[in-house]
């Protein structure tokens, strides 16, 4: 107290008077580097919206006043991948769009995270057909999958909070190991062939029971040439 009350020779007030905890408090704090870096990262996540379908409507609702993503540090949607931290893939992705998604992911600087929002982005959803990517995890790495068709804004916010939890667990000591990228992976599928087949195989409730798979005889439209090899 006495120290801060002392006038400086120049006549001005002490440079230490406006400390972090008010007048008289210390002007520094000690913390772990991991904590302060992760704290600032997880509270300033800027999402890159990759909205292609109805999930994007829910994403817009999440950003609007009722749910207000800005409360959690997603201060604005970053429509440039260069300034984005987390990619939100909201909606179905056809094969024609797959190189675009991959390129946007490649353009985002590290550290970066990604969210697969909704059934279509996560697994192809009901669109188990010739034109749709069966889960974007065959194209890019995914941190959080949000179920729903489409998920409500609360679900998206919960997903983003899970990303924040994930960031909290990271340590700068393993930063380069965790975040290293193979330059040769740019523009290529994330999964190898065997993994793509494992990830995109028909689920019990979709193509295995329809007439095209041929596993269930439904009517005369079931033809041998349509069956999967």
């Amino acid at each position, binding site marked *: 107290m006495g120290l801060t009350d002392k006038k400086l020779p120049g006549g001005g007030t002490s440079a230490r008077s406006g400390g972090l905890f008010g007048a008289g408090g210390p002007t520094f704090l000690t913390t772990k580097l991991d904590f302060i870096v992760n704290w600032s990262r997880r509270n300033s996540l800027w999402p890159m919206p990759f909205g292609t379908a109805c999930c994007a409507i829910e994403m817009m609702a999440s950003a609007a006043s009722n749910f207000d993503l800005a409360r959690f540090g997603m201060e604005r949607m970053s429509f440039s991948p260069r300034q984005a931290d987390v990619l939100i893939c909201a909606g179905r992705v056809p*094969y*024609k769009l*797959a*190189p675009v998604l*991959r390129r946007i992911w490649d353009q985002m600087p590290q550290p970066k995270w990604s969210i697969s929002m909704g059934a279509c982005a996560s697994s192809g959803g009901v669109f*188990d*057909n*010739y*034109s749709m*990517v*069966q889960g974007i995890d*065959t*194209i890019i790495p995914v941190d959080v999958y949000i179920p729903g068709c489409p998920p409500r804004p609360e679900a998206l916010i919960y997903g983003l909070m899970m990303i924040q939890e994930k960031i909290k667990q990271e340590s700068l000591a393993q930063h380069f190991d965790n975040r290293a990228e193979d330059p040769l992976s740019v*523009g*290529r*599928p994330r*999964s*190898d*062939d*065997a993994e*793509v*087949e494992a990830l*995109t195989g028909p689920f019990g409730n979709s*193509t295995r029971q*329809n007439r*095209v798979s041929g596993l269930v005889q439904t009517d005369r*439209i079931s033809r041998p*040439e*349509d*069956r*999967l090899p």
Partner: protein
Amino acid sequence: MADETRSGLDAVEEGPAASEDAESAASGAGTLAPEHPSVKALRARFGEAIHSHEVGCRGQHVVFVDAARSREILEWLRDDPDHHYQFLSDLTAVDYGGGRPLHVVYQLFSMTHHRSLRVKCVLPVTALEIDSVEPLWKTADWLEREVYDLFGIRFNGHPDLRRILMPENYAEGHPLRKDFPLRGRFSRAEQTRRALSQEVADFYIPEEMEIGRDPQVLGHEQDGDALPSGENA
């Protein structure tokens, strides 16, 4: 107009019209809608080239014409002042499966006479070719590209017949054909690999690529020339 609306409602109340059964549809034609003036004129002018005529759901008149003379017939329908179908609402195709022929559908509308007509051409699966109507209606450009992309019907005389919806390097065939398997012909791994091997140049013709690259195409060079002369003056 009121009669047409009422007859359309009657058609709905009757349930799904047996549009596949030409006779039952035609028998309902007397109560549904009057004889279509364009069909009568077509029969008078083109005779044998007009194969059949039926009335489908909501009094929609469908006329089947000879595919070899379709271009000539459609041009006459567009230009004749008594008919004047200057608007091509839609151009599409239907595959009924089982090796049956494909139908190319032209949905015409005359703003002059407030009248619509559906013209169909029947193409056997062994000869999927028909004359392009792009010179008649410019909107047919992309519509014919779409039909070519999804059904594999070739339009002779089209200026730029290439895929429009599927990727340019798509090699699995034409997806809306009934003999096309739902999940495609290639494995998912192959499809994923092919999808990511697409080049931007695959999607566009050279002229379209130039638009993004060369300022001259957009007229920027003229602006650049005008600036120094303005400074001198």
